[in-house]
Structure formats: C-alpha cells, structure tokens
C-alpha cells in the first residue's frame, strides 16, 4: 500500500465522545482536529462523491465541511463523524442542484469505478449516473440525504448517528426515500446501470 492510504484506513464508525470517560470538554488542539481529519476524511469524501461523482469536487466539499466544522465546533462535537457526513451530503446535494455543477458533471466521464469497462459502457454508466444524480437533486432533501448516506456504505447505526434519529427509524425512512427515487427515475425512464 502506498503512503497515500496512510491514515485513511481508519474505521468508519468512530463516534467522538460516545464513551463517557472520553467526553470531557477540552479545547480542541490542532492535533485533535488533524486526527479527526485523518480518520474521517476518506469517509466524508466518499459521501460527497456519491452525489458529485467527481473526486476533485468531492474533496472540495469535504474540505469545506471540515472547515465549517472547525469554525462552528472548535471544541469538538459529540457526534463528529455523523455531523461531517450529513453536512457533506447536504452540501454536495446543494452543489448538485446548481446548474453550473450539473453541467460540469455532464463532462465527467467516470470515476475509478469504470476503470475496467469499455469506453462505450463507461459512457453509458456516466450518462446514467448523471441522470440518477439529477433525480437525487429533485427529490426531497431528507430523502436524498438518507439515500446518499446509506449508499455511501454507512450502516443503519451510522446513518442514525448522522441523522440523530433512532436506528429503528432508518429502515422506514430509507424505504420511503427509495420509493421516492424510483418514482422520480421511472418518471424520467432512466435505465439503471448494470
């Protein structure tokens, strides 16, 4: 593994301050923020990339979210990971909804996921993903947010953490969101990629 992966192999579900013994208020140092950044950066980028499909744009969103977090919560946050991921989802969806980003996405051919595909299938995948992304931007924001979080690979517990809802409510909300997206996709006759 190359050095770029260092610090990114940290597990996803770290929950800042869940352990009462670790929840003493204390001024966050640069070191603490850097540790949080290194642990959560990849996960936050992944959430943004789920929406934007473009690594550079996703990284920009992630850095903006970390910046916001630091400005708003210099003393840290009880559920930092969830905060960052949900913020990334909303900010990415906001950017998706802007025409400028939408048009730019049309020029994006693919992320690494299509690396092994033929040029034709890569174009098909890119086109479909763009249309699915546009559909995400049209459904209700809370529906889009839970879809982005869940389909970024977060568990129900992590989604619940990000949304500050009981884990038992995730299934119902996810179901409603999935139906909303399917309805939007069916309306546009978007064929899912393979």
């Amino acid at each position, binding site marked *: *593994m*190359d*050095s*770029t992966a*260092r610090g*990114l*192999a940290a*597990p*996803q*579900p770290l929950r*800042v301050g869940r352990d009462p013994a*670790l929840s*003493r208020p*204390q001024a966050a140092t640069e*070191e*603490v923020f850097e*540790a949080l*950044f*290194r*642990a959560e*950066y*990849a996960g936050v*980028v*992944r959430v943004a990339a789920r929406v934007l499909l473009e*690594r550079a744009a996703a990284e920009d969103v992630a*850095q903006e979210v*970390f910046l*916001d977090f*630091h400005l708003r919560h210099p*003393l*840290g*946050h*009880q559920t*930092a990971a969830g905060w960052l991921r*949900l*913020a990334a989802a909303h*900010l990415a969806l*906001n950017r998706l909804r802007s025409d400028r980003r939408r048009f730019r996405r049309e020029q994006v051919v693919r*992320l*690494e*996921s*299509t690396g092994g595909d033929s040029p*034709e299938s890569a174009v*098909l995948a890119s*086109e479909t993903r763009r249309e699915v992304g546009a559909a995400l931007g049209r459904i209700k924001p809370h529906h889009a947010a839970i*879809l982005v979080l869940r389909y*970024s690979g977060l*568990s*129900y*517990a992590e989604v619940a953490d990000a949304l500050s809802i009981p884990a*038992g409510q995730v*299934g119902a*909300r996810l*179901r409603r969101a*999935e139906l909303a997206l*399917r309805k939007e996709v069916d309306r546009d006759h978007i*064929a*899912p*990629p*393979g």
Partner: protein
Amino acid sequence: MITLLHPADGLIRRMVDEPWLVPDQVRRHVLGCPRCSSRWLLVTADGAAVERLLPPQAELELDPRSAWAATQRRLRTADPARRPASWARLPRRLVHPGRPAAAVGALALLLVGAGMGTAVAGVKWTQIFAPTKVAALPVTRAELLALPHLREFGRLTGTPELKLTPEPTLAAAEAAAGVTLSAPSPVPAGVTGAPHYYLVPRWSSTFTFSSARARAAALAAGVTLPALPAGFDGSRLRESVGPGVVITYGSSGESLGDLFGVRRQRSSACASGSSCKGGAPTKVSGSSVPTLALLAVKPPVLASTGVTVAELESYLLSLPFLPPSLATAIRHLGDPVTSLPIPVLSDLGQSQPTTVDGARGVLFAAASPLASAVVWEAGGVVRAVGGLVDADTSLALARG
C-alpha cells in the same frame, strides 16, 4: 403464546440489509407469514433496484497529506467571523450549539485508526485462494437470510456488482474473454429462442476489515460478536474473477439484465449499432428466465494483505449467528484454499457430486419447477450449464 404483529416496512427493510440486527422472532415471522414474506420480497426487489441506480463506489485514491495541507491553508485564510457558505443550507440540528465538546476524547481512538493505517503501509498482496475444484455448499434460503452483510465487518470497495456485456457472436465473446465455450448442438428439446452471448468482464473488489465497524454493528444490535482475531483489523482482501463467456437461450438481453445485471441499452449505445428504438431507454420487461444457460469463466482468486483462508474460515465458524447446519457444511467443504464453494439451495432441490471428463463437479436438480445445473472446473476455467431442463440433459450437455 406470544402473537407477533406483522412488522412494519422499515423493519423489513432493515431485515434485507442487516438481518442479524433484527430480532429472531421477527425474522421467523416474516419467513413464515405469506403476507410478510411477500412484502419482504417486494422490499428486497425495491432495494436491489435502487442499488443498481446507486451502485457501490470504487475506492477513491486520495492523498490525505495534500488534503490536510490544503485544508490547513483554507483554515488559515478563513475569516474567523465568517459564516460558512454552506451554513444557511445545513439542517438546523447540525448547528445546534448545545452539544458537549468531546474532541479530545476521540483522539486516542483516532490515533489507533491512524496507526492501523501505518501498519498496513507497504504491505504485499499474497494469493490465498485459487480453487482447482468445486464443492457443493448446501444452504437454505432462511440460512442465507441469517447471514450478515460483509459491510458490517469492514469496508467493501471496488465493483461489487457483476455486469455482463452483450456480444454479437460467440466468437466475439470468446475473443474478448480469452475463454472458449461450446454452444450445444443440437439444442435440447424444450429449449427455444435464439442464443444470446455475453462477455463476463474481469471483476474485482476489495474488502478492508474493521473491528470498530463490527463492534459498532454488534453494539447497535445488542449482540456480542467474537472479536476480530489479531491481525485482521485493517487487513485487506481482494477478490477477482473472470473474464468469461455466457450463452443463454429463451430470454432477451433485457430480462437477462434484470437477472444478472446486464447494462440495458440506452440511446448513446444505439450509435454503435445496437438495436435501439428511437434512442429511448428501454423499459424493464417481464421476468422471463433463460431456459438454458452455459457459462465459462476464470475462477475467483482471493489475495490478502495478511489474513489466511484458514483464519477466515475459523472466524466465520466462530460467529454465533451462523446456523449449525451451515457450519457443518462449511467444515465438510474440504481444503479451503483449493475448493470453490457452490451454494446450492437445499430447500429447493438436491445436489450430488458428479464428474465431467474426469473433473469433479456438482449436480443440482429441482423437481418443481423442473430445473438442473452442473458446475465443474477444468483447465483453470469454471464451467456451468443449467436451466429449465432435467438433470440428465444438463449432464449430457456438460459432458459434450
């Protein structure tokens, strides 16, 4: 006697993704209740449809040092009094100031994570699984339902969904795959329709173990999982399979796409000569199943950054929710390094060992509906033939 009400859609939805986090009595009810099992199938199908729209993402190659440096620069140049651009659009809950600070508490945990990353830096991949024979793994649908998703033990990245590519001729598919496959001649009685040819592209995905993720899932469910063995946390597995060739009879490419994830034709593909109508995306047709299918594919290979197949098997067998019958079947698979498990649904039909030109194979046969299949490996290629035909027909096709 406790009467269980029909569970809500949300609980059934979770049962699809995280079945081991749903109480046993609820799962048993859903599987045994005709109404709820129908709802479960519907929810499963809807979830699968959305997953095709939002397929798992590839692992992003990121440079955390550069990203951290860039964020530091933005932090230094940011106006401390500024209102973040995204602020007004974030949910009110996100900006609630009353939550206690706890960043320091996380430091120790986060450094553990950072240390873990360092520990695997410069690691070498070692091939740990290269099957040379197939072995039946009897499993029921209920047992499959009881198994957890791999995502609960770590992070799965790559291209987890296998995608087939239609090819105009068998020769084209063979040339693209580098694998040969003989079409049946003559086609068995009852098998109708023109053959369809597909390339199975090389497929791979990477899984990174995470003890924290496993622990979080277990804590959320109130169950106790055995701790990941030493060396598992942060270690990675990379699976690859293919390329290969598929021939089907009795179904169109569209319905096969529903079954196997073939990318449906769209307007931009029409320009390349595909049969599209008016450039409009095609709609999903019915769920017609191929009456006969033949497959030849390079077998799956598993590489690891440290964990061995024996350790994987040992941990799998230690999981408390693994049904005893399935655990026994896993123990009887044989050499875990060279045996390719072929799951056979024992509640739908029966399987038995067979041979195809001297190679070990597995024959599966179901009476209702009539169906059978033979799977075997020979010459470094996994081959299979099966469909809505009887066992003798499948065996005859396999043996040429």
